C-alpha cells in the first residue's frame, strides 16, 4: 500500500514543522502559557508525533535526546536513518511507510515497542541492538522466508508479535512454526496463544528445535569460554605477567631469531634446548605466580585504603549534617518566634544572635573539613609509602627472577658455542656423521661466522628478555604513579574544594535570607 509520491509534494522535517508539532503536542493551559513564554527545549521533549506529514526522509531529529516515543507513521519514508541521537527511545512507530530494509537502529538499545507495519520489508535483520524488545509488529510486509523468523529467537523478552499479511502466512505450518520457534511469545497477531496450540506446535517441531537449541547452547558456551579467557588474560595483564605462564616468552625469543633454528640442527643442541626450555619456563612460571600474588595484595591494599577513606568521609559528613540539622532546627524556631514578635529591639538582638550562630556554624563546618583534610593527608601519605614499597619490592623480585633467565641464556649460549666449535672442528676434519642442510653448512665457513651467528642469536635473546623486564617495570611504575595522582587529586584537592564551596554557598544563602527578613521586617 504505497502512496505514490508524485501526487503530493514530499515534505522535509524542518525547524518550523518540529516547532509546530512540539507546541501542539506540548503542555496545555497555564502550563502551556508558561512553556510558550520561556520556549520549549527540544532536548526536554519526551514524545513526538509526526504522522501524515508526507515525510520522505528522517532528518533533523538529533536535538531530541530524551525522546522516548516517536510516531512517524503514514509518511513516505523509504529508509530508516538519522535516529542515532535518540538513544532513549522506547516506542517507535514507522508503520505505513515505504521502508524496504530494517537498518539504522543500532543505537536504539532501549526500544521495547517497534512497529513497522505495512512497509516493504522482505527480511528481518539488523536488529541485534534491540535487546529489550517486547513488542514487534511487521505485518503487511513482504516477508516470505519462515526461516527468517529464527532471527527473532535472540529477543528473550519478545512477548507480542504481529506477522499477519505477509506472504509466508499462507503456509499451513506458519502458525505452528512461529509458536514453536519463539517460545517466549505470548501473543501472535494480537491473539493469546493457548496452551493446546503451543503443545501441538512444540510436538510438530520437537526435533528441529532440539537441534537448534543444542547449537545455540554450544554457541553460547563458546562465547562464555571466550569471555572467561579474556577476563583471565586481562587479570594477568593487570598483574603485568601476561603470557608468562607457559613457554610464550621462550618461544618469542626464537621467533625472530634467524640463526637459532639453524643452530638447533647441530648435533646435541636438541637436548640442550629441551633442558634449557624446561628451566626457563619454570622461572617464567615463578614470575607469573609471584606477579598474580602481588597483584592480589596490591588490590587488597587499595580497597582497604579506599574503604577506610570512605568511612572517614562518611563519618565526617554525618557530623556536618548533624551540625546543619541542629542549626536548621534553631533557625526554624527563631523565625516562627520572630514572625509573631513585633518588638523591634527583640528582633534586632535575635538577628544579631542568629548571625553569630551562622558564623559559628561556618567555623564548625570548616573545622570539620580541615580535620578531615589532615586525617586524609596522613592516611594518603602512609598509603603512598606502602604502595611505593610494595611496587619496588615487586620490581626487585621480578628483576631477580629475570636475571636468572639471563644466566640461563648465558650458560646456554656458552654451551651452544662449544657445540658449534666442536662441530666446526669436526667439519674441518670431515668427521661429521650426519648430513647438514646447506644453509647450516654455510655458517661453518670459518670460525668467525659461526661465532657471529651464535652471538647474534644470543644478543637477540637477551634483548627479548630485557624488553620483557622493561615492560613489566614500566607498567608497574606507571600504574603506581597514576593511582597516586588520582588519589591526591580526588581525595585531597577536588573533594576539599567541592566541600568548601558548598559550605560557603550554604552560609551565603543563610545570610541572604536574614537580610531579606530584615528588609521585610523594616
Amino acid at each position, binding site marked *: 500500500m504505497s502512496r505514490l509520491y508524485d501526487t503530493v509534494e514530499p515534505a522535509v522535517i524542518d525547524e518550523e514543522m518540529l516547532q509546530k508539532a512540539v507546541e501542539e503536542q506540548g503542555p496545555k*493551559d497555564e502550563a502551556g502559557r*508558561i512553556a510558550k513564554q520561556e520556549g520549549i527545549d527540544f532536548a526536554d521533549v519526551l514524545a513526538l508525533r509526526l504522522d501524515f506529514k508526507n515525510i520522505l526522509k528522517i532528518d533533523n531529529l538529533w536535538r531530541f535526546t530524551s525522546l522516548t516515543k516517536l510516531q512517524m507513521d503514514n509518511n513516505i519514508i523509504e529508509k530508516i536513518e538519522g535516529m542515532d541521537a535518540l538513544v532513549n527511545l522506547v516506542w517507535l512507530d514507522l508503520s505505513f511507510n515505504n521502508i524496504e530494509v530494517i537498518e539504522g537502529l543500532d543505537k536504539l538499545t532501549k526500544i521495547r515497542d517497534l512497529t513497522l507495519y505495512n512497509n516493504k520489508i522482505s527480511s528481518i535483520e539488523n536488529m541485534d541492538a534491540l535487546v529489550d524488545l517486547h513488542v514487534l509488529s511487521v505485518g503487511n510486509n513482504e516477508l516470505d522466508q519462515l526461516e527468517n523468523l529464527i532471527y527473532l529467537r535472540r529477543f528473550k523478552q519478545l512477548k507480542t508479535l504481529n506477522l499477519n499479511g505477509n506472504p509466508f502466512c499462507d503456509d499451513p505450518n506458519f502458525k505452528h512454526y512461529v509458536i514453536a520457534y519463539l517460545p517466549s511469545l505470548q501473543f501472535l497477531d494480537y491473539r493469546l496463544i493457548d496452551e493446546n496450540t503451543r503443545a501441538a506446535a512444540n510436538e510438530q517441531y520437537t526435533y528441529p528445535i532440539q537441534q537448534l537449541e543444542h547449537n545455540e547452547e554450544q554457541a553460547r558456551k563458546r562465547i562464555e569460554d571466550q569471555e572467561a579467557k579474556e577476563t583471565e588474560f586481562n587479570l594477568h595483564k593487570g598483574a603485568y605477567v601476561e603470557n608468562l605462564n607457559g613457554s610464550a616468552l621462550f618461544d618469542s625469543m626464537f621467533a625472530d631469531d634467524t640463526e637459532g633454528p639453524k643452530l638447533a640442527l647441530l648435533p646435541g643442541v636438541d637436548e640442550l634446548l629441551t633442558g634449557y626450555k624446561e628451566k626457563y619456563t619454570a622461572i617464567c612460571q615463578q614470575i607469573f605466580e609471584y606477579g598474580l600474588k602481588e597483584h592480589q595484595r596490591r588490590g587488597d*591494599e587499595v580497597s582497604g585504603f579506599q574503604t*577506610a577513606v570512605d568511612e572517614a568521609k562518611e563519618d565526617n559528613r554525618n557530623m556536618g549534617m548533624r551540625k546543619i540539622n541542629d542549626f536548621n532546627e534553631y533557625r526554624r524556631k527563631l523565625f516562627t518566634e520572630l514572625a509573631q514578635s513585633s518588638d523591634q529591639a527583640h528582633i534586632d538582638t535575635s538577628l544579631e544572635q542568629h548571625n553569630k550562630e551562622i558564623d559559628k556554624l561556618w567555623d564548625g563546618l570548616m573545622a570539620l573539613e580541615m580535620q578531615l583534610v589532615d586525617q586524609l593527608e596522613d592516611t594518603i601519605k*602512609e598509603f603512598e609509602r606502602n604502595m611505593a614499597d610494595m611496587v619496588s619490592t615487586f620490581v626487585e623480585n621480578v628483576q631477580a627472577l629475570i636475571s636468572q633467565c639471563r644466566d640461563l641464556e648465558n650458560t646456554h649460549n656458552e654451551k651452544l658455542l662449544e657445540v658449534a666449535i666442536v662441530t666446526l672442528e669436526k667439519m674441518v676434519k670431515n668427521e661429521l656423521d650426519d648430513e647438514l642442510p646447506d644453509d647450516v653448512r654455510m655458517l661453518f665457513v670459518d670460525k668467525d661466522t659461526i661465532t657471529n651467528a651464535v652471538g647474534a642469536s644470543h644478543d637477540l635473546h637477551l634483548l627479548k628478555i630485557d624488553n620483557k623486564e622493561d615492560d613489566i617495570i614500566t607498567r608497574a611504575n606507571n600504574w603506581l604513579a597514576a593511582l597516586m595522582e588520582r588519589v591526591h587529586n580526588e581525595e585531597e584537592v577536588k573533594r576539599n574544594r567541592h566541600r568548601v564551596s*558548598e559550605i560557603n554557598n550554604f552560609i551565603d544563602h543563610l545570610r541572604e535570607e536574614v537580610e531579606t527578613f530584615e528588609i521585610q521586617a523594616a
Partner: protein
Amino acid sequence: MDENAENNGDQANNKAEETEENEGELSVDDLRAELEKIDIEVPEVEISEVHIQQEDAYAEFPMSYKENTNKEKLILAYAENFRRQYVHLYRDRKPLLLNPVNECGIEKFVSTTIRPTLLPFQELYGYDNCAEFVADYLEFQALDPPVDLPNQLVSPTTALKRQKGNSFDFATLLCSMLLGAGYDAYCVSGYATREICLMDQTRDICPLMKKKGELKSEEKKKEVRKYQVKPPKDLRSKFDLKMQARREAEEEAKAAERRKEEEARISELEKPKPDALHGLRIHCWVLVLSGKREVPDSFFIEPLTGNTYPTEDDKFLGIESVWNHQNYWVNMQDCSNGCKDLSFDLGDSAKWEYLLHSSEKPSLEIPDVEAELYEGLDDDEEEQEDERHLEMPPSWVHPILVTPKEYETRCPLGKKTILYKKARLEKFARYLLKDGMITKLSVYDDYELRNLLSVKEWFVNRQDKLELRVHNHRTGLITEYMQQGRLDCMKEHTYKSGSPGPETDRTMVFYDKARVDGLVKREETPTEMMEHFKDRDDFLYYRHVVFSKRMKKFGASTDANHRPILKITERFHRNKEKIAGEDVSECVFHISEDRIQLTFHCEDKRVTASTREFIKPPNANDKSQTITMTPDMTSTFQVDTTKKSPKNLYIYNMLVSLVEAEDQSVQAIRASEEEIKECLLERIREETVSELSISVYDTERNEKAKQHRKELERQQLEEKLRRQEQELDYLAPFLAQMGDPEKIARQQAFKLKEDCLADLKQRLIDKANLIQSRFEKETQELQKRQQWYQQNQVSMTKEDEEEYLAYCSEAMFRIHILELRLNRHKEMAPHKYMALEQKIRTDGRLSDYF
C-alpha cells in the same frame, strides 16, 4: 546383705555420727527427739489405723489393689528384711519409706507403686509440661506431722481421681509420667526447707515476671584497619579528665554502696522466719538423671510447684533414699551440707546402697519363685553367690488415665491461684471464663498484696484475637496485644484507661505486612497524630499532623465536623531512581499559612540539602480554576551552584502536583481519623460480645461436629440392629415345634432337615403358583379385551381405540414381566433348595449328623 554393704555401713556409721555431732550443735532437743525416734525397733504399721477414705468405695478398686501376688509378697518380705538390717546397722538413721500401705490398706513396696505411663498428649512429652500438669492437677495436702513419713502412699490413679495428695503422691505420679516419657527419673525421699515442703512461694519471684535472659549483644569491636584515619587530636586537659574520672568513680562507688545497702535491706526483709523444724521436714521430690532424652545435667523437679532446680540448690537439705520402678537406693553420703556435694552415680555402691542386686541388667533367668522365697528369707549371701536375683514385680497400679476433658480442666474446678512475692497468679481452664482469660497476673508493690501495680491478662481462643492485656495501674495505660488475623491488622493498642474515646492519647501498632498502606504505627495525642509506614511504593515513611481546636458549627451540617489541620509533615525515603536534588525528603504543608516547604535529599557527598518553598496561589483548592503561577511565589536554595535553575514549566508542574498531594494527604488523614473511630467502636463491640472461637478439631465443643458425630453413631447403631434382624435363625420355628431341645438327637435332626426342606419346597411352589396364576389372569383379561375390541371395532371412537391400544401394550408388558419372573423362579428354585440343604448340612447344631 553382703560384707561390702557392711563395710559401707561402717563408713556410713561414722558419717552418721558426724552428722549427729553437727546436728547436736544445732539443737540438743532435736537430737534427743531424733535419737528417741531411732530407738524404736520396728515402726509398727497398723493397718487398722489406716484411714480408708469413704469417698473411694472400697469395692471399686481392682483386685491388684486389694491383695498382693506371690512376687509382691516376696519383695515385701525382702524389703522388710532389708529394713531390719538397715535399722540394725544404722541405729541413728531415720526409718525408710519402703512398704507403706495403699488406699486399700494393703502393704505395697514403693517401687511397685510407680507405673510408667505415657499420656496421649503431645505437650506431656516434655518434663516441664509434665511437672506443670501434676502441680496444676493435684491439690496439695501437707504432711501431718511434717517430720514423719506418711504411712499411706496411694496409687497415682487414685491420686488423680481424688485430685489431692501429699508430696509423695505428687512425686509418684510425676515420676510415673516422666518414666513413661523416657526420662531417667527417680522419686526422692528426703528433707527440704519449709517453703518447699509447704508449697509456700510467696518469697519467690513469679516465673512470668522473670525477665528472659537478656541477649547480650556482643558489640563486635571494629577491627582496626590498616588505613583507619587517626582520630582528631584531643585538646582537653589530661589533668581535668583525670580529676573528673576520679570524681565519677567516687560517685559510682557511693551509688554501688547505696545499692548494696538497699539490697541487703530487702533481702533481710524477705528472709524467711527461722524454722524450728529446719532440716527435719520430710519432703518427696523427683530427680531426673542426665543421659536419657538428651538431658545434659541431672536436676530436681519440685512436684508441688512444677519448678526445676539444680541438684546443688540449697532448698533441698538432704536425701534418705531414691527409687524408681525398678530399684530402691539408700543414700550413704553425708548430707550435712545439703545436696551440694552428693554424687548421683547410683551404681557406686559405696555411696548408694541398693536394695535389689542388679536390676540395671536384668538377668535372662526366670527366677524360681519358691526357691527365691526360701533363700531370700534365709540366706542372702547364698542368693548372691547363686547369681539368681530377685526381680522387681510389675506394678500393681492400673494404667494412668487422663481424659482430654480432665486434661483441659487441669486444676480442680478449673481454677488455681498461686501467691508469689509481690504477685498473685491466677490460672483458669480454657473456656471456663466467658472472655477466654486463662491466666491473670497481678503485680503489687508490697508484700501484703494491697497496692496494685499492674495486671496482666492472657487470653486464648478469642474471636477478636486478643492475646494479652496489660493494665498498668500506675500510669493508667492499657496495652492490648493481638494476634495476626484481624481485619484492621492491629498488633498492639495502648490507651489511657480513663479516656478510651478517639482524639486522645493512644498508640496503635499494626502488622504492616498485612496492610495495604504499610502502616506500622499510629500515635495520637489530642492535637497531633503521627503515622509511621514501611515499604511503601511512594517511599513515604512518616506523617505528622498538627490539628487545631475544632470550630463550633451551628446548625445541622451534613458532613462530619473535622478538626482543622494546621500542618502536615511528610518524610520520604530516598528514591534511587531520581536524582538526589530532585527527590523530596521532607514536605511540609503549612495549611494555615498556605505555604509548602520542600527539603530535598542530600547528595551522597554533600552535607547540605536543597530546599524550595512555595506560596500557594489563592485559588489553588478550587478545582474548576486552573492554577496560575508567578515567579515570586517560589523561592529556592540550590546546593549545586553550577547547575542551571530548572525551567518554570518544571516548577509549575511541581506546584500543581504538590497542591494535589496536599489534597490527598488531607484525605488520607481524614480516612485515618475515621479508621480510628471505627477501630474503637469495633473494639467496644468485640469486648461486649466476647465470643470465643472453637477449633474445628475440638470435637467436644464444636456443636456441628458433635451433631455430625452423633448422627454417624446413630446410623451405625441402626445398621447393626438391621443386621441382627437379618441374621434371624432360620431353624427357629422348627426347633420351636420340637420344643427347643437342648441337644438335637439324630432322629430329630433328620426330621428337622426334612421339615425345613419341605417347607422351602412348599414355599417355592406356592410362589411359582402365585406367579402362574397372575400370569394366567392377566392373559385371560387380555384375551377378553381383544375379543371385545374385535366385536366393537367398527363402532369405536378414536379415543376408545387409543385407550384399548394403550391397555394392550401395558398388559403385554405385564405379561412379559410375569413370564420372566416365572422363568427365573423356575431356574432359581433348585438352587435355593440346594443352598438350604447345604446350609443345613453345615449348620453347627446339626453338623454331628450330616
